[in-house]
C-alpha cells in the first residue's frame, strides 16, 4: 500500500487526526527545524517559529495544493516567520551583514585532506550571505526548484540563477 501523501495527512490532521499529524510531523520535523535554526541561529527562537509555522498551516486558512505542495507551503510560512523575526530584532543586522572574515587560504603547497576539505566546505556554508544560505538549506531540505520558488516567492529563473551564484561561491572557497 502506498503511504499517504503529505497533502492527505494534512487534511486528516486538520480534522483532528493525531496519528496523521504524527506522520506529517516526523516527515518534516528535522528538515524544517534545521532550516529555521540555520536562519535564526537561536534555538529558542527557532522552536517558536517552527511551532507557529505548524499552527499556521494546521489552523489557518486551508491550503490549496493546485500550485504548490504541502512542503512548499510549510517552508514558505516558516521562512516568512523567520524574516519577520529577523526584522523585528537586532539579529537582523547580524544575519544580513558581512560574515566574519574567512580563514586565510592555504598555500598551494598545502594539500587538503578529505576531512579538511569537508570542514572548509561546512565553514563556507556557514559564511554564506543570508539569501544564499536560505537557498542552500531549502535545497538541502530536498525541495525542488519549483518548491523553492514558491517558498521564496521569486520566479523559477531567479532560483536557478541564485543557485549558480551559490555553487560559484562555494567552489570559490575551495582550492
Amino acid at each position, binding site marked *: 500500500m502506498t503511504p499517504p501523501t503529505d497533502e492527505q495527512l494534512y487534511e486528516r*490532521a*486538520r*480534522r*483532528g*487526526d*493525531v496519528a496523521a*499529524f*504524527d506522520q506529517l*510531523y516526523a516527515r518534516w*520535523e*528535522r*528538515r524544517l*527545524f*534545521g*532550516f529555521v*535554526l*540555520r536562519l535564526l541561529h537561536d534555538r529558542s527562537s*527557532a*522552536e517558536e517559529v*517552527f*511551532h507557529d509555522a*505548524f*499552527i499556521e498551516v*494546521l*489552523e489557518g486558512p486551508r491550503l490549496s495544493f493546485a500550485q504548490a505542495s504541502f512542503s512548499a507551503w510549510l517552508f514558505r510560512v516558516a521562512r516568512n516567520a523567520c524574516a519577520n523575526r529577523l526584522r523585528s530584532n537586532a539579529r537582523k543586522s547580524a544575519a544580513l551583514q558581512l560574515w566574519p572574515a574567512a580563514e586565510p587560504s592555504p598555500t598551494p603547497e598545502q594539500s587538503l585532506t*578529505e576531512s579538511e*576539505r*569537508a570542514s572548509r*566546505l*561546512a565553514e563556507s*556554508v*556557514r559564511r554564506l550571505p543570508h539569501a544564499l544560505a536560505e537557498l*542552500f*538549506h531549502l*535545497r*538541502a*531540505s530536498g525541495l525542488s*526548484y519549483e518548491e523553492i520558488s514558491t517558498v521564496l516567492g521569486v520566479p523559477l529563473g531567479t532560483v*536557478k540563477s541564485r*543557485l*549558480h551564484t*551559490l*555553487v560559484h561561491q*562555494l*567552489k570559490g572557497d*575551495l582550492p
Partner: protein
Amino acid sequence: MTCAELEPLLMPYELGASTPAERDACETHLAACPACLAAFLSLKRVREDAAAFDERPSPVVRDRLRARVAARSRRRPVLWAAAAAALIAAALALKVLLQPPPPAPPSSLIDSAPPSEDLL
C-alpha cells in the same frame, strides 16, 4: 573526462545545478571511478552535515502541537452542533418573518357598523 576535469562539476551535481550534459558526464565518470565516487560521497556528507538535519526541536513542541490537533478533533462535534442550532434558529426566524399576517376583519363591517346603543 579525467578526474581533474570532473572535480569542479561535483558541487553543482550535488546541488542539482548541473546542465544535463554535465550531469551525464558526472554519472558516467562516477560509475567507473571509485576515487571520484568517494570524493563525491564525502561532499554529499558535508552538505548533509551542514544542513544540520540531526537537530530536532524539544519534544515539548511536538506535544503542544499534538494537543492542539487533538483539541480540533474534540471541538468539531461542538462546532457542528452550534452550527446546526444556528441554522435551525435562522430557519425559524425566516419562517416567522415570511408568514402572512392574520386576516384582518373586513373593513366594510368596521366602517358600516353603527355605534352600539350601549356605548352611547
